[in-house]
């Protein structure tokens, strides 16, 4: 297990290093931020001074060296726009995004798995077919459009829930969260649902396909031959087998949930990292963009690492073969 962990950790570090290069080179190609930040009337000397202040006059490899060195110290540069460390600005927005992504994940799992299993157990029933039809909609309608539809129905027509913002927050362990106040919870429901819908459809399909497959296995028939109740067969024999692939995929999807939050945050004016990213791209605020990308990569890589470990804990076959290896 330890060998396995060390090896996985090594892979993660390589992935982060590769991303650092890609991000730096990619973002460098976006264009010269000075063109936007500086008054078009300013003189050549003023531009040169600004470029020098921001370190933009040095050769690319030197900028990259400085970038890496600073990044290792948690310093991803000063935002061109806010004049404060980019990392600090991102981190301020991180809790909002993480809260949104986690709540959406919990929603998509806690609704998606039962629905998917039901649809898998009775694929030809009306219920099973409706669940599948619903998941196809959730899958194929664009995310922003679903979000606007949610706003239209629940905020505009019914007036039950607010259309945007984060609402009242409370501080828990130094982190501001919405879900513990009634007002915050109300603000959270629609964006979380919006972010969850796509993943929920994925979870439903995954759970359904796996349930159908597992149902055909000899061990399910054997469980029936032992006289077990259908309840136990579904909740223990089937569920435990489908959880392995489903948890793996869902875990890996948490990372993309953070990325997907960009759309939802923009539609619902949710003050998270995603919205910050869009704003920063519009302003070519390079350090913030770089900080966002690096942090997201770090999050995704970490999540994948954790998921792998959980996966190996869940599946005895993986766990033991890794020990042998």
């Amino acid at each position, binding site marked *: 297990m330890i060998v396995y962990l060390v090896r996985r950790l090594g892979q993660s570090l390589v992935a982060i290093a590769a991303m650092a290069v890609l991000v730096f080179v990619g973002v460098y190609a976006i264009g010269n931020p000075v063109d936007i930040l500086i008054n078009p009337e300013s003189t050549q000397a003023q531009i040169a001074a600004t470029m020098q202040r921001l370190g933009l006059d040095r050769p690319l490899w030197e900028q990259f060296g400085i970038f890496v060195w600073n990044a290792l110290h948690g310093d991803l540069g000063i935002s061109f726009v806010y004049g404060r460390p980019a990392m600090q600005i991102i981190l301020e927005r991180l809790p909002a995004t993480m809260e949104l992504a986690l709540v959406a994940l919990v929603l998509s799992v806690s609704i998606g798995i039962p629905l998917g299993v039901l649809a898998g157990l009775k694929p030809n029933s009306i219920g099973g077919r409706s669940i599948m039809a619903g998941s196809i909609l959730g899958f194929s309608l664009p995310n922003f459009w679903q979000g606007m539809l949610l706003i239209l129905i629940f905020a505009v027509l019914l007036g039950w829930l607010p259309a945007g913002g984060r609402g009242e927050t409370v501080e828990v362990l130094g982190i501001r969260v919405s879900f513990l106040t009634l007002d915050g919870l109300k603000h959270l429901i629609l964006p979380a649902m919006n972010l969850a819908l796509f993943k929920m459809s994925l979870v439903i399909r995954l759970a359904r396909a796996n349930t159908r497959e597992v149902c055909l296995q*000899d*061990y399910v028939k054997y469980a029936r*031959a*032992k*006289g*077990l109740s259908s309840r136990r067969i579904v909740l223990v024999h089937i569920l435990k087998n489908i959880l392995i692939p489903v948890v793996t995929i869902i875990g890996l999807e948490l990372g993309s949930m953070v990325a997907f939050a960009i759309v939802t945050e923009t539609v619902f004016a949710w003050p998270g990292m995603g919205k910050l990213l869009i704003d920063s791209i519009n302003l070519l605020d390079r350090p913030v963009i770089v900080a966002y990308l690096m942090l997201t990569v770090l999050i995704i890589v970490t999540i994948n690492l954790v998921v792998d470990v959980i996966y190996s804990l869940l*599946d*005895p076959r993986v766990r033991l073969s890794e020990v042998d290896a």
Partner: protein
Amino acid sequence: MTLLQVEDLATHFFTRDGVAKAVDGVSFSLDRGEILGLVGESGSGKSVTGFSLLGLVDPPGRIVSGKIVFDGEDLVKGGEPMMRTLRGKRIAMIFQDPMMTLNPVLRIDTQMVETVLAHERISRKSALERCREALARVGIASPDERLKSYPHQFSGGMRQRVAIAIALLHEPDLIIADEPTTALDVTIQAQILSEVQKLCADTGLAMIWITHDLAVVSGLADQLAVMYAGKIIETGETGRVIEAPLHPYTKGLIASVPQGQKHGALLAQIPGTTPSLLNLPEGCSFRPRCPRADAACQEEPPLGALLPGRAARCFHPHLDERREALAS
């Protein structure tokens, strides 16, 4: 004393391509403590017969008619509620492939204890004790350690022993063993056969041993029932059937068992292949492959009692050779 009486059982699969009569009017009976060998080529309906007895036939299949009288009660009439109380308790089943029957993600103790608790309200501790005893009974050393293992840590033979132990947990009246040794190598197969035989003799449990391999059951079963295309075509006491089969199909099966032939000698295979259930010939379904077939065989032969304790479904049974054998 009769434990199980199957009468005219029919289990059909209603597929898109037509109705597959996988079990088509099967009758047999089984006494307590008796071992019945259910023999036939693959696809003849043996497994479906076994599953029907436990109400485990999955759609598109279902029992369409017949009776399964177990210890005086008709299970077909009793339906799922009655079958469920019997499954694993009074009728246990052992499946063909031990690699596939134990749940790969659950520990052995979980899978054994749940079987005990499905039918009895006892503490987990005494359930575990029962599992330990059952494992010891099928010759598994250090049961405590084994109980904490997962199926993939066991060899095929070991897993099948575990499956037999699970079948024994409630001391059932009947065990249906569906080709339980087919997936195992010959030595393990022989070991398990002799152990099972001993268990049956010791505990008086009855058994239906399903196999495509006559050699396996010839030393084990008291009675044989030979199946072909969903029907039983010959029944009788094992020794007598093997010595002098009545039905041409049974004769062919016996001739194809390797037995003391010289190495490399050709075995007499039955010509042709098992017919598709969706496209059976008119009359006797063995007709296209039968050396004795004639015009009479275009009618469906009945299962006739041809000798005391012997029956066969054939218009031209091998009675003549019998007489010759008796005369000499």
